[in-house]
């Protein structure tokens, strides 16, 4: 068992970020979101609401989509994290990227990293999602620009491109 650190003590956190082992000194209740952005300078992960409602801070934690604003770094010890920077080499990213560009699925860009991660997470679980699956898979990601239709179409189009290959 880990020793109980006194209040205010930083401890070393070792975890894997985008395939690379990282060690940072952090307070265990620091949010994963803040460690990614401030310590590791991975600013593709955005902060929106800070309370798990908007999905703009989405990352994959051991392959699961999570809101990084709701994960204390003390729970990420030993975990494997994939951020928008790291997903770029994922096999699904070519079709997803092309589809978002063609369908107008990205406008101001704040929700886009989270949308992309949620889309990849969905397509990994359901390679041929119907519209209800897409709506559900992205329900935790809010967008104030597009009105969502272009994003839903982008995910459907990404799935078709992948199946066509």
């Amino acid at each position: 068992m880990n020793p109980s650190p006194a209040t205010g003590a930083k401890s070393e956190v070792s975890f894997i970020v985008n395939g690379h082992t990282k060690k940072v000194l952090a307070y265990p209740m620091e949010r994963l979101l803040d460690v990614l952005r401030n310590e590791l300078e991975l600013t593709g992960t955005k902060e929106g609401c800070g309370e798990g409602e908007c999905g703009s801070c989405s990352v994959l934690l051991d392959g699961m989509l999570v809101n990084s604003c709701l994960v204390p770094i003390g729970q990420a010890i030993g975990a494997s994290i994939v951020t928008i920077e790291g997903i770029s080499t994922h096999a699904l990213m070519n079709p997803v990227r092309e589809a978002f560009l063609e369908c107008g699925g990205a406008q101001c860009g704040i929700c886009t990293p989270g949308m992309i991660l949620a889309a990849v997470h969905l397509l990994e679980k359901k390679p041929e999602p119907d519209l209800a699956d897409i709506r559900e898979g992205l329900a935790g990601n809010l967008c104030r620009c597009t009105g969502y239709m272009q994003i839903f179409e982008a995910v459907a189009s990404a799935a078709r491109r992948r199946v066509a290959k």
Partner: protein
Amino acid sequence: MRADPTEYRLVSPGNLQAVLSLLSGEPAQWLLIAGGTDVMVLYSAGKLPNRNLINIWNIPELRQIDVLPDRISIGAACTYTALREHEIVSREFPLLATAASWTGGIANQNRGTLGGNIANASPAADSLPALLVYDAELTLISVRGERRLPYRHFHSGYKQTALAADELIQDISLPRRFAGYFSHTRKVGARNAQAISKVCLAALGQIANGTIRDVRLALGSVAPVPLRLNETERLLTGKKIDSSLIETARKSAVNEIRPIDDIRSTARYRAAVAGNLVAEFLEKLAAAGMDA
């Protein structure tokens, strides 16, 4: 005002016995954190009074679902995603699987836990009416030992529970005897995704020889605690469903609940919707009974 992480302590004992020892040593000092979907929201807003947290996300004993011949035992730190993806939960306890699909978006379902929903004790929690109608039983554990508590006795008032300061919820056990029931659940909220319920119904019923043999009704967001409609169930049992019985049940349901006005809805609206949901269920149950 954002919380200052330097003022908080988070320890990760990694096994159940060590968690219980910590709780027993300084029982009122600790708050358990599993997926953090409630705790971290309060923390980030600077509204978390507890300064000492114990991580139970990584306790394997709390993450299992055991299927036994007569019951299913769900570890308290099982996530909504784990519930939705479990074959027996989906097949025999569809009210729970559906409630899990309503709880937040996918990211929160990947982290939020059934035990957390119970311990957080919100009367608006979507999974709790399902636990009431399925006769859930909780295993509460501390260094003093284990005790089993019917879930219906767990909530004693608004955000008040039967959990002692040194206890945690180990598992939630559901008897496997509802597979033959007609089940129906409906959530009424501002939108389908991500919205907290104004009213939520979970209901089970069984028709035999044209009359109601057994009926189970529970509502969320209509009282200080998730509420089983015992009186309404009693007056329905043994009766044939017709329009006058449905009207009687609607009135009885409205009498049993104690809704309030709050940011999400009004008492008057909640009462009307609660009555409508009970009526809708009975109409569906009658139709299902005719087909049977």
